[in-house]
């Protein structure tokens, strides 16, 4: 009634009159409760005058019987939300509450109501409340004193934060306010199980921290508390203290910290020196960093002491001497403390490094052993890395620049040390020095490049060699001229020097180094011609070595392509330089093959073509659509019509007709792999000329070709294009055509395998994009699982459908891939697989299990764990299947399930133990390993379930301890060890 306007509140009050004045407190309570409920519904409709009367009424009622109070508070809460509350009323309500109500003897909900009233008033009547001065603060302190409920604490902490943040007068009550909140520190609360309120310990910790670290006024009370709690036995208390201190440093200054710095430092030092917990160490270091930053920030007046300076002096005094003992435990904690302090500001950095760097340089010379030098250089490196933060160095004040000569000499000595570990640190140091602008002089730089060349090519250890190449790659963009002028020619020279067999690995290293250093456009323009020249040279000839060499060059070219993808200009240069050149070379080889079939050509071998595919693909994926269109207008006519004019060498002995029939064109047809690499990597927006004709040719080739490599490649190329093809009639037609060719091919005849390959790739293309036809094709594939001849291949095909293929139909080459396709495929097809399995004859049952295990294996783990229990009985059956692929994938499905759903798995413990133990003697090593891992994972089931099996398992696991393969023994040791501990004291 009141809500609708037909009743006024006064009428309601009058109607309730007898009830509100009843002498029985229960009846009065019910009356007030009703009134309060009404007010909560329609406080926004009240008139100013009504509010005034109601407030007076309710204030008065606060003195009433305790049974009535909860309803009174509800009413006041409703009124505290009224916009039309007259000035002065808020203060009067609060005063009445502070005076009349002993809040902490109320129930949780009623206390919460009081906090809500205060919060509401603070939100809308800030000025009036501030008029109360420190009385308000004092009133609130009394309200929250003794609060125990986490829900209320969250609200109360928020009120304290607002008191401070909005500058309410704290007056003489700072310490009381601190006491009433800090008594909860450190938070020791764990939510009850099944807590419906969802308050986490972390919520309380953060909320309290925000209070404690909200004002420097608390510093004198808080800092001693934090110092005390840092020494706590509880790690959580330590961490909380450290994090709170770090938060305080953001608002404190010298004044607050001064008195406590010696104790803070000694606590931090004690923790870092003693703890082996990385968490505690990391927090201590973060806190020290914050302290140093805080002291660095403070403005110095002329008459005060520079606290930063004296603080850093004490750190140096306590840590410095440990740096001279590179074999002792405290060397690293000391170095980390110094680095944490130094990293806070440029001033701190100079103060610390001017002292420490000369010491480290001296220590390096004093300690002759490689392992000691490595530790010292690693520490030096840590300080050099900090310098990177400050960017460029200024000549006059940089302590580092004055140490250029000794630093370089130490780093160079590490690079020529026989210890690989020391070399590796030296290389990292070199990378850092190079990134400091202006640190390395031109003559230093030449020496750097010489060292890198030497390590990259001559160092026996591959780690050092690789690290040197990486370093060259990261320094090259900073000094492109030095690297293209000094390193590239040296590499080219080494590559051409024809030394015999032994230099084979040198050649490899040269190729890798050329690729690694190609991280700047100007260098790419130097290295790509060298690599292509090399390719021309090694492709002549048919020996296995030639093929291997071509593959190596292709790998280097691929790496260069990846490195210049992000740079539009470099990418186009690369595409134009490399793609036509590769095509021309391959064409040349294919035509020579057509005329002289006996000269086997390295370039035409499957592994070589397969190595060229990623090069062309990487050179294409990042092209802009305009440039890609330009390129596609050359390459498609090349394959469809033999248009060779755009190729660099374009005089060929015969014409290029890869889609024509004829025995002698076999070699030309293999080059469809290169077409696939290009055309399937184009951005989706690029139109492909004569696409329909191209698709028909590819389809025909995939069905009719006898060479499996060519047929598969054609099928993949077809699928890659179909996946990106715009939906519509044209696509439907070409798909219909494909189905028409596939179905008879699958039914019978000599090319059933080719037809299956085509089916698999087209299905994949359509499954990825959720095309409606994919269901029909998948059903076809499911049918084939029952086929005696094609069944096993169809089963393996499920792996192809689910896995990411490396060359086509993945996101990187702009394929249309829906993110949830695997889950969708699972939901649609697993029931059919299960059904098929039950209906199938004994000869082909394994095919269904294999298909199923491929699908499960590619499913994301969390999905797997939720879905697996329904398939459990089937999986247990699959463990008895003799196919080792099925065994392996079933074991790898079961292992996470054992860890994450131990309750469900406990029901089958008998079967699991028996099967796992029997598979530990499988002839296949991978199965033995997986079975032992499962036997190990079994130990996460409840101990009582396992104990009856303990003796049997331990006995059975003795056998794989003597397995002939080390990797199996390792798993057996781990599994058996865990089983021994089951139910033993001390586990």
């Amino acid at each position, binding site marked *: 009634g009141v809500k609708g306007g037909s009743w006024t509140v006064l009428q309601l009050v009058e109607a309730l009159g007898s009830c509100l004045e009843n002498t029985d407190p229960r009846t009065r309570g019910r009356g007030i409760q009703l009134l309060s409920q009404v007010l909560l519904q329609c406080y926004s409709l009240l008139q100013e005058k009504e509010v005034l009367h109601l407030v007076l009424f309710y204030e008065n009622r606060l003195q009433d019987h305790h049974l009535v109070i909860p309803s009174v508070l509800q009413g006041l809460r409703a009124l505290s939300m009224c916009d039309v509350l007259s000035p002065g009323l808020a203060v009067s309500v609060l005063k009445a509450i502070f005076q009349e109500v002993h809040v902490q003897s109320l129930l949780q909900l009623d206390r919460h109501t009081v906090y809500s009233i205060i919060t509401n008033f603070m939100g809308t009547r800030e000025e009036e409340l501030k008029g109360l001065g420190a009385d308000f603060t004092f009133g609130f302190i009394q309200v929250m004193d003794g609060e125990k409920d986490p829900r209320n604490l969250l609200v109360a902490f928020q009120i304290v934060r607002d008191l401070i943040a909005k500058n309410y007068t704290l007056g003489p009550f700072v310490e009381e306010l601190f006491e009433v909140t800090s008594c909860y520190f450190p938070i020791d609360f764990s939510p009850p199980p099944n807590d419906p309120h969802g308050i986490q310990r972390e919520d309380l910790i953060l909320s309290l921290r925000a209070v404690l670290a909200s004002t420097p006024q608390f510093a004198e009370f808080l800092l001693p508390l934090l110092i005390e709690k840092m020494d706590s036995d509880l790690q959580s208390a330590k961490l909380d203290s450290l994090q709170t201190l770090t938060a305080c440093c953001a608002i404190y200054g010298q004044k607050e910290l001064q008195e406590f710095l010696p104790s803070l430092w000694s606590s931090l030092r004690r923790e870092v020196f003693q703890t*082996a917990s990385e968490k505690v160490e990391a927090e201590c270091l973060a806190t020290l960093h914050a302290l140093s930053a805080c002291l660095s920030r403070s403005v110095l007046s002329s008459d005060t002491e520079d606290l930063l300076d004296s603080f850093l002096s004490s750190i140096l005094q306590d840590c410095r001497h440990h740096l001279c003992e590179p074999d002792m*435990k405290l060397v690293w904690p000391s170095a980390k403390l110094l680095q944490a302090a130094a990293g806070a500001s440029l001033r701190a950095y100079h103060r610390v490094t001017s002292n420490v760097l000369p010491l480290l340089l001296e220590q390096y010379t004093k300690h002759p052993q490689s392992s000691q030098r490595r530790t010292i250089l690693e520490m030096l490196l840590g300080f050099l890395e900090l310098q990177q933060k400050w960017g460029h160095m200024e000549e006059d004040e940089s302590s580092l620049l004055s140490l250029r000569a000794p630093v370089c000499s130490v780093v160079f000595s590490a690079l020529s040390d026989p210890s690989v570990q020391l070399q590796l640190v030296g290389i990292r140091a070199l990378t850092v020095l190079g990134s400091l602008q202006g640190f390395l002089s031109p003559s230093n730089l030449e020496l750097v490049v010489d060292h890198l060349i030497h390590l990259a090519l001559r160092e026996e250890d591959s780690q050092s060699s690789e690290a040197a190449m990486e370093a060259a790659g990261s320094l090259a963009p900073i000094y492109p001229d030095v690297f293209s002028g000094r390193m590239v020619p040296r590499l080219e020279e080494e590559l051409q020097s024809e030394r015999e067999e032994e230099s084979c690995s040198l050649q490899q290293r040269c190729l890798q180094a050329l690729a690694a250093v190609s991280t700047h456009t100007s260098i790419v323009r130097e290295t790509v011609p060298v690599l292509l020249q090399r390719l021309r040279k090694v492709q002549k000839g048919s020996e296995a070595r030639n093929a291997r060499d071509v593959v190596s060059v292709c790998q280097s070219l691929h790496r260069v392509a990846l490195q210049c993808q992000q740079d539009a200009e470099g990418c186009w240069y690369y595409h134009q330089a490399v793609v036509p050149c590769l095509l021309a070379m391959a064409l040349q080889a294919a035509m020579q093959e057509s005329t002289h079939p006996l000269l086997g050509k390295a370039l035409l071998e499957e592994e070589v073509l397969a190595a060229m595919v990623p090069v062309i693909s990487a050179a294409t994926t990042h092209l802009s659509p305009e440039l890609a269109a330009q390129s596609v207008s050359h390459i498609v006519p090349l394959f469809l019509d033999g248009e060779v004019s755009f190729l660099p060498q374009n005089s060929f002995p015969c014409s290029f007709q890869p889609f024509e029939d004829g025995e002698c064109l076999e070699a030309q047809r293999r080059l469809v792999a290169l077409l696939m690499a290009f055309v399937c990597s184009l951005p989706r927006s690029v139109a492909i000329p004569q696409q329909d004709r191209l698709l028909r040719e590819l389809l025909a080739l995939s069905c009719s070709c006898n060479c499996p490599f060519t047929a598969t490649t054609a099928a993949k190329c077809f699928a890659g294009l179909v996946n990106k093809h715009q939906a519509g009639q044209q696509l439907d037609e070409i798909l219909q055509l494909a189905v028409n060719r596939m179905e008879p091919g699958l039914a019978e005849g000599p090319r059933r395998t080719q037809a299956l390959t085509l089916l698999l790739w087209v299905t994949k293309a359509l499954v990825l994009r959720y095309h409606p036809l994919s269901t029909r094709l998948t059903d076809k594939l499911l049918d084939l699982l029952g086929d005696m001849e094609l069944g096993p291949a169809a089963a393996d095909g499920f792996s192809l459908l689910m896995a990411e293929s490396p060359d086509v139909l993945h996101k990187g080459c702009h394929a249309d891939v829906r993110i949830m396709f695997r889950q969708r495929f699972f939901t649609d097809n697993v029931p059919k697989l299960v059904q098929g399995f039950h209906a199938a004859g004994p000869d082909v049952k394994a095919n269904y299990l294999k298909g199923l295990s491929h699908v499960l294996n590619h499913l994301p783990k969390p999905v797997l764990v939720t879905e697996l229990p329904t398939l459990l009985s089937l999986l247990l059956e699959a463990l008895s299947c003799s196919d080792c692929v099925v065994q392996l994938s079933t074991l790898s499905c079961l292992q996470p399930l054992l860890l994450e759903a131990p309750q469900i798995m406990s029901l089958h413990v008998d079967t699991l133990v028996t099967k796992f133990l029997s598979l530990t003697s499988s002839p296949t090593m991978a199965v033995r390993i997986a079975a032992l891992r499962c036997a190990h994972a079994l130990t996460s089931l409840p101990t009582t379930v396992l104990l009856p099996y303990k003796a049997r398992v331990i006995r059975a696991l003795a056998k794989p301890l003597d397995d002939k393969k080390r990797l199996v023994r390792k798993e057996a*040791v781990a599994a058996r060890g865990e089983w021994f501990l089951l139910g*033993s004291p001390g586990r």
Partner: protein
Amino acid sequence: GPGSGAPLENANPLIYRRSGERPVTAREEDDELPDSIDDREIFDISVFLNPVHLIRSINDPEHPLTLEELNVVEQVRVKVNDAESTVAVEFTPTIPHCSMATLIGLSIKVKLIRSLPERFKLDVHITPGTHASEHAVNKQLADKERVAAALENSHLLEVVNQCLSARS
């Protein structure tokens, strides 16, 4: 943990680098070729022990130094002969009066008993000249019955098992 509060036995001990995970070779991945049990394999098993309960200066259970970092077990002091089925492990207590020497030896021994094929004959002893009561400890470790009796003691078994629990 043990030792907290009390003065540390050695707050700044010498430490040694971990040798890192053993890299898997192509040969090891080959299903057919057998791999013999070698020194490194036994070393890896021995250093897997969780030394929290053995070395008193380490008082944080989360990231203890390993027996390798403390140089208690070194690969050069592990000798295996797969063909003759013998394993000998020498261990070096952190200080000559280390009160935990027997327990360290016992833990290594139990770990090896549980991890090696039965055909092996085990010999676990202190590196000569590195402990005050070297002979007494060695004698105890070599005596099968005394080892068995020690493991009947549930308190001792508890400590040994704690050392044998996975480290992480």
